[in-house]
């Protein structure tokens, strides 16, 4: 409990640090956002006006304080290119990214744990070797290339899935939460749901399969450790069926390290989402981030980076809490 409390107390500090680091790194940029505006040939009196408007004529520490004060009120600034508040842009783009990362996490967990268990149970047989080879291939494939290979196979050759987007162009659906799965289920719009799932399949696979490689390896070695334990021998000696021993006795205990890994992996999944979104034209934070970098739209870059990093920090905190819930030994300590 004490550990968790410490973590909770530290959370604001970590959040502050993440925000500050982002601010500092972006201010290291040679030149400033104004160069980008100036590059679009704005008249010089306008530049002065814009400078004042963005507070760029103030000293850096003052800009920083204004920026922090804004964040506390949920104000991430305004996009240089469109004048839309950054928080609104992020609000629209975050649900698709979370959908994608969660779908990828489900795939990575199911495929990875399944493969890891099979591999451990069939230790040193050909199926174990094939799973291990596949796992190391999985964790070596770059997301963007796996995405393209999946497109070549499933979209171009087989024609099963669309090459990009989140839903068929022009398809009508009601937005309530921004999460398409929830929205379509709530309104019972099955056609839109089907279209969404077919669009989701390839990007989620591209991210999930890569991460499944890590999960399979960790599951396998955790299973091997557990399968050696005395209580497994006892369970076998009692005459329990193999499946019961493996699933109920061994797997439950082997899942703890997998949980930790998935917390850490969520960062990789988010990173994978950023890149995969670009390949699939998925309208998430990642694509917004890349577009904003190309436009040198710093307030948006800043907001997107902070948002993704915050997600990562919060997920890891959640995993820590979950860890204490799942493992009674930690609760007592």
């Amino acid at each position, binding site marked *: 409990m004490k550990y968790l409390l410490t973590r909770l107390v530290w959370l604001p500090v*970590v959040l502050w*640090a*993440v925000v500050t*680091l*982002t601010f500092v*790194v*972006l*201010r*290291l*940029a*040679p030149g400033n956002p104004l160069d980008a505006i100036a590059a679009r040939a704005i008249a010089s009196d306008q530049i002065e006006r814009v400078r004042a408007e963005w507070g760029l004529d103030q000293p850096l520490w003052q800009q920083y304080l204004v920026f922090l004060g804004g964040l506390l009120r949920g104000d991430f600034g305004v996009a240089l290119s469109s004048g839309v508040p950054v928080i609104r842009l992020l609000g629209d783009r975050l649900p698709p990214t979370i959908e994608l990362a969660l779908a990828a996490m489900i795939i990575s967990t199911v495929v990875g744990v399944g493969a890891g268990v099979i591999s451990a149970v069939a230790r040193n047989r050909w199926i174990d070797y094939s799973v291990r080879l596949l796992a*190391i*291939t999985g*964790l*070596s*494939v*770059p*997301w*963007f*290339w796996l995405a*393209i*290979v999946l*497109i*070549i196979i499933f*979209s*171009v050759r087989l024609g099963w899935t669309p*090459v990009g987007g989140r839903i068929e162009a022009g398809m009508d659906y009601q937005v309530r939460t921004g999460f398409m799965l929830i929205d379509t289920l709530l309104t019972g719009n099955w056609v839109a749901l089907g279209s969404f799932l077919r669009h989701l399949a390839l990007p989620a696979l591209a991210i999930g399969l890569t991460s499944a490689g890590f999960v399979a390896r960790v599951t396998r070695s955790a299973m091997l450790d557990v399968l050696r334990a005395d209580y497994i021998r006892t369970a076998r000696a009692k005459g329990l069926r193999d499946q019961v021993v493996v699933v109920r006795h061994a797997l439950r205990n082997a899942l703890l390290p997998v949980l930790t890994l998935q917390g850490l992996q969520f*960062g*990789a999944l*988010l*990173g*994978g989402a*950023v*890149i995969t979104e*670009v*390949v699939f034209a998925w309208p998430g934070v990642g694509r917004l*981030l*890349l577009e904003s*970098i*190309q436009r040198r739209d710093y307030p948006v*870059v800043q907001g997107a*980076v902070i948002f*993704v*990093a915050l997600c*990562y*920090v919060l997920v*890891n905190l959640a995993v820590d809490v979950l860890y204490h819930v799942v493992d009674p030994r930690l609760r007592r300590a």
Partner: protein
Amino acid sequence: MTEDLTTNPNPQIVSVPIPQRAQAGPGARFIAVWRGNGLALVGVAFLALVVLGAVFAPILTSYSPTKVNVRERLKPPSLTYPMGTDELGRDIRTRILYGGRSILISSSLATLLALLIGTGLGVFAAYRGGWLGELLMRLMDIVLSFPAILLAILVVAALGPGLINLVLAITVAMVPVFARLARAIVLSIVEQDYVIAAKTLGLPDLVIIRSHVLPNMLPLVLVQATGMLAVAFATSSALNFLGLGVVPPTPDWGLMVAESQRLVFDAPHVPFFPGLVITLTVMAVNVLGDGLRDRLDPMGNTR
């Protein structure tokens, strides 16, 4: 130690070198270390091929990696063009050979820099500790609270594209990993009796670090570095794919995939081959890392 002296009637024998070990040449020892680890050897061999290919690219191919040849555009793989040609009629195999340069340089340089800086910071934080060491490690924690690729993207977004900025971006994301490992190792080493003895004898810190701490740290750091090299390859190719790394027309694997992404319908071989080479290279590093880990870190400290 005292027990040895009392139970062993002839303590000098302990210091006699074991002859077989001393006689085995470096080649024989290399084979002994890698026996039973065929996959790791395959990895080493493949990496050697990639490095040699990148170094001797001008000798290995007569085509230019950058010269446009519109009449030969989008040729499928054939005897003249083993991997086909791209949209501008450039030989893909040639571009892959030359393209190894940017990714090899950026990844290995970034890993080396991160290793030196990170290990230095970690050793300092552990050995000299104090508030400065504590502050350093907290800073490392903060850096680690960013997904690595996101941090690299952020740094490149601030500094702009280019090979040097690419190296810096990857280095920054990897430094904390080495710092944490080095600190943990040093903290466990300085508690050992022999270090306490050396301190009691009044040996200067630098001597202790050089003769006791670093040699014990090296294997673990090497294993970690191999793992990080794979991460560096992945990050470098991803940044290049996003157009945040080297600038065209410099051939680069990630960039080649990005530039040919929309050819999936007409000429899928163009994005296919560079990506395949990235995958195989990262695989080779990973396999090598696994082999090293089995040999040098059986306790799994770097896992």
